[in-house]
């Protein structure tokens, strides 16, 4: 009896082993799986002899079969579920890092109003979409077509007491509406420009119907310095005051505040004082260099023209310095002058 049971057990074991044999694969190194991408990496070195001895296609297929069996075994270990008569397996998250398609989205830059509201702590209030219209005795939309209290649909408007009786009140209302729309659009464009870091429209002097006194004085002062010599030779009227509020205002650091900043600044100063190297003002140095080159080339040009040909014939390379230097000086002559002009303005 006991032997019988043992026999049965042994047979069952054997069966099990045989069954597993058909799906088990022996590999030196285990495969690496990333089931999120249904990916398997076989790091074992591929047997090059096998490729030569057997047919290439057969060899590749047997290799692929083994690897596929392993990945299928791995997938079948995961929990399955039934969704609409279909058995699906839940895949884990992909672990292999892959580059993104585009950089992560940036937060939308706030509009001028949003900035202001944040500063003042103004919060958005949700308004109901429908409001009660007393005239029509029904609920209507707050905005848009067929809105409640629609003042564009009135057939009669009372003329205000202090208004011109001949003025068209309807036209006036329409015009006001159009102005508001235009202003809103303009503000929208300004916000867009600010967000894109473009020149913001409507800054500086813009045409307005009635200019205030300060606007006018500003316009005058701007016009005066808008000459080739930046207003240096512009005449003044007898009692004219010097323009106010032009140029940079000095700004001081706060007396109390960020101590670490202050400390850093002091340390920077000390560092500069301690260092043995001289400080170089790059713009100044470059300007000086250019000026020297310019003057040199000019003096060369004055000496030059008659001798140039002969010299060039005599020595090819050694003389090249003179000839070339001259070319250099003359060629970009426009540029350095421009730059100097800029530096002067500053």
């Amino acid at each position, binding site marked *: 009896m006991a032997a019988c049971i043992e026999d049965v057990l042994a047979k069952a074991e054997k069966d099990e082993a045989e069954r597993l044999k058909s799906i088990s694969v022996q590999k030196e190194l285990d495969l690496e799986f990333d089931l999120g*991408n249904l990916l398997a990496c076989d790091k074992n070195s591929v047997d090059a002899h096998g490729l030569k001895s057997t047919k290439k296609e057969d060899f590749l297929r047997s290799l692929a079969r083994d690897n596929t069996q392993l990945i299928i075994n791995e997938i079948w270990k995961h929990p399955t579920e039934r969704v609409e008569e279909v058995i699906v397996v839940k895949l884990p998250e992909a672990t292999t890092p892959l580059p993104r398609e585009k*950089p*992560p989205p940036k937060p939308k830059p706030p509009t001028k109003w949003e900035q202001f509201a944040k500063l003042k702590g103004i919060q958005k209030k949700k308004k109901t979409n429908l409001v009660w219209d007393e005239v029509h005795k029904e609920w209507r939309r707050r905005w848009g077509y067929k809105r409640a209290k629609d003042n564009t649909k009135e057939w009669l408007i009372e003329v205000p007491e202090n208004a011109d009786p001949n003025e068209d009140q309807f036209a006036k209302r329409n015009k006001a509406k159009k102005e508001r729309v235009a202003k809103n659009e303009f503000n929208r464009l300004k916000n867009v420009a600010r967000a894109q870091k473009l020149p913001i429209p409507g800054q500086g002097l813009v045409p307005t119907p009635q200019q205030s006194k300060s606007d006018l004085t500003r316009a005058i002062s701007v016009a005066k310095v808008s000459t080739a010599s930046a207003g240096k030779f512009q005449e003044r009227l007898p009692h004219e005051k010097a323009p106010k509020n032009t140029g940079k205002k000095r700004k001081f650091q706060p007396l109390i505040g960020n101590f670490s900043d202050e400390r850093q600044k002091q340390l920077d100063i000390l560092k500069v004082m301690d260092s043995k190297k001289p400080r170089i003002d790059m713009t100044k140095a470059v300007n000086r260099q250019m000026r020297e080159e310019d003057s040199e080339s000019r003096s060369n040009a004055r000496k030059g023209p008659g001798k140039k040909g002969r010299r060039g014939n005599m020595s090819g390379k050694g003389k090249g310095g003179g000839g070339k230097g001259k070319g250099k000086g003359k060629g970009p002559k426009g540029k350095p002058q421009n730059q100097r002009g800029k530096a002067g303005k500053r």
Partner: protein
Amino acid sequence: MTYTDGIVKPKTKRSKRFLQNREPKLTENIKNTMIMKGGNTTETVTQALKDIYALKKPNAVLYKKKNIMRPFEDSTSLEFFSKKSDCSLFLFGSHNKKRPNNLIFGRLFDYHVLDMIELGIEKFTSLKDIKMSKCPEGTKPMLVFAGEAFDIDNEHKRLKSVLLDFFRGPTVSTVRLAGLEHVLHFTALDGKIYMRSYKVLLKKSGCRTPRIELEEIGPSFDFVLRRTHLASDDLYKTAHKQPKALKPKKKKNVSHDAFGTKFGRVHMQKQNLDKLQTRKMKGLRKRRGEMAATEESTSPKKHKVDE
């Protein structure tokens, strides 16, 4: 207005939706692929491009006309096309005397070329040449990379990443078990890369997991590695940067041990047992004046500060 230069404002809701779909997103769309050919191609290259298009189908664009360009010398036109068709993967096929039957696999980040790897076709069997039943369109393939070169060599590593990006298909949370019927097998051996595509046959094995048999369906390639253009480490790193919102939030005070048991940590303040209310008796009741005086000292916050 001159200020609106470069800012496209959609005129209809539909075009707005279209533009929104192309904007950068937290979880991105599936990467699209553009498949194009250069000024000169052979039949092999054209057929190869068509076959790979068939593998990639719903997420690919096949450019039918010739586009004369050299991606390794000037990638501007490639970037232009990628912007046009919103594709961040490309496959470029060309043929010339120096580099016959040439395929360039590449990917772009933010409409700029990230990686390009040039592979020469040495042997090619088309999808059409093998008369077998094929896999349905849009099947997510299983990808297997075999050979130690994919783990050791830098270029092979990057090639693996590019190919994975190229062929992996959509990211899915679940997959139908019967739908796992396509395997792409890449073998790196002796400087060559063998790409084979098989159909999976699930056979009964006697236990739950089925036994696998494979049937070649094509296309199959024998590639050699040619020129490469790999992204600099800096760019590669920025391209991998995940936005903060996608990272899972760290849960405080919860931990797991090796067996998966969940542990919680609870923070408690010391309880003042002197002030514990035990039993209410008339004799122990506080009078009004006393209450006000004791209240300040008993508040727990203050107590903690004192300690």
